[in-house]
């Protein structure tokens, strides 16, 4: 399995001259392999946004190393590395550079000096992949948030990145937009085996991931599958996160005396348990 990204004992502080203040990121280690979807969850201030900046080389760690495709990220290989990473930011408007949809998708290609004919082909292919191919000449202010984010994904895909990073990409979207974006990402994972790193506070988004990293106060509090992480239950709520719907309902049912076998993460599991524990006698 190819290792796409790894953090090895990475620490970063915004105030290195004041060692008494807590570091933004403290001794964090993890890795992402090809084809995986990793979600980083945590409250505001937990370090997750700093980690994203460390991945894209906007910041460099004071301790430890960040490796992309097994190479340590440095100032020298920064630009080459960036062409391997595609990023979608939180604010759909503040990353849309082009005058129209296709212009924006071409932006990163232009920056890399990709020849014209190839640019045209890649722009059309990427837009088709996110199902925005009918919007080539639309201007951004005529698009919904979800559509703008899909264009941003297309812009990232056009560079054929090894890793797609979604930095709270659904936080500012309405439920429909959020749905569109997540559907698109899931379809891309199936079609081209895209590796995804998503930073989010949306529980449903985290549930799609293969593994979840739970950040708290700059440290990696826990890492595991969504089931393992959400099993931490109340600890998550304490740290500002929500539990998945099925888990909340399970708890409420149990409080009211409904017989259930255990914790559940999906509605289907919960419904099945209701059946087996109460009807199948």
């Amino acid at each position: 399995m190819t290792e796409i990204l790894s953090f090895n004992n990475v620490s970063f502080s915004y105030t290195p001259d004041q060692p008494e203040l807590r570091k933004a990121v403290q001794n964090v280690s993890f890795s992402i392999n090809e084809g995986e979807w990793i979600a980083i969850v945590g409250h505001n201030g937990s370090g997750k946004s700093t980690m994203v900046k460390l991945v894209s080389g906007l910041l460099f760690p004071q301790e430890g190393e960040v490796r992309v495709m097994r190479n340590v990220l440095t100032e020298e290989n920064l630009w080459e590395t960036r062409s391997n990473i595609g990023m979608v930011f939180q604010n759909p408007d503040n990353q849309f550079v082009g005058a129209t949809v296709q212009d924006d998708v071409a932006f990163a290609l232009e920056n890399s000096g990709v020849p014209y004919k190839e640019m045209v082909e890649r722009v059309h292919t990427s837009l088709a992949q996110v199902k925005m191919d009918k919007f080539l000449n639309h201007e951004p202010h005529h698009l919904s948030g979800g559509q703008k984010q899909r264009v941003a994904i297309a812009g990232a895909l056009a560079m054929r990145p090894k890793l797609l990073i979604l930095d709270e990409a659904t936080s500012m979207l309405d439920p429909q937009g959020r749905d569109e974006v997540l559907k698109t990402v899931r379809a891309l994972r199936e079609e081209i085996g895209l590796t995804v790193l998503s930073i989010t506070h949306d529980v449903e988004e985290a549930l799609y991931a293969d593994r979840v990293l739970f950040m708290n106060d700059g440290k990696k509090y826990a890492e595991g599958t969504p089931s393992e992480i959400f099993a931490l239950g109340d600890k998550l709520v304490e740290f500002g996160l929500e539990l998945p719907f099925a888990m909340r309902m399970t708890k409420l049912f149990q409080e009211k005396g409904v017989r259930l076998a255990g914790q559940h993460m999906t509605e289907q599991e919960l419904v099945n348990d209701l059946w087996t524990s109460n009807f199948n006698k």
Partner: protein
Amino acid sequence: MMEKMIFGRFIPGNSFVHLLDPRSKLVFVFAFILVVFLANNIFTYALLLAFTLLVILMSRIRLYFLINGLKPVIILLVFTFLIHILFTREGDVLFELGFFKVYEEGLRQGVFISIRFLVLVFMTSILTLTTSPISITDGIEVLLNPLKKLKLPVHELALMMSIALRFIPTLMDETDKIMKAQMARGSDLSAGPIKERVKAVVPLLVPLFVSAFKRAEDLATAMEVRGYRGGEGRTRYRQLKWDWRDTVCMAILAVMTVLLVFYRN
């Protein structure tokens, strides 16, 4: 209030003029502005009017929009006309009104200057009505490219222009939102003493500036992560194509210039 204002008044379409390369349009209009001053008699002014009419017809733009474009300068036009009517004292007296005498030359000059005004306004309006702002920026960028050798930051200026243009509708929407939010809190830009109204601009400008800076920061980060590091080695996605229409356009320009030179006094 600021609802759905069409910036630059660009009206999309498929006419001959719409399909011209922005470079030929820019060159045409620029040359036209110079060539207008060649006219100095009835025939040459009539020629100017005829060519302008030809361009208007070829652009298939509705008269409504052209008239609208004239509105801001109509006062200037009337004022200039009146100045000539009243203060030029040459030629025969055409009629008298009290102690105001209208001279033949005054009327002539008045009419000529007004025609000049009119055709200039119409021609430049046609330019902005048939060419999207981004096309104009592209045209200017390519035309100014040779100046790169003189260290003029052509690429950076063009990128600044295109990003600014892209954000104008977004910023206008935001201005509207902020204005409404402050109005909902009792702020009133349209009524009250001047001092109050000036103060009411602060709750509008501060949030706009704050958000504009945040946008700029976010955008710069996004551009950097997407590999932007200046114009070196960049390729162009938006290509300009010169075709037969553009050659025809230049030919019309040439014909017009020759006719004006030939028929002027």
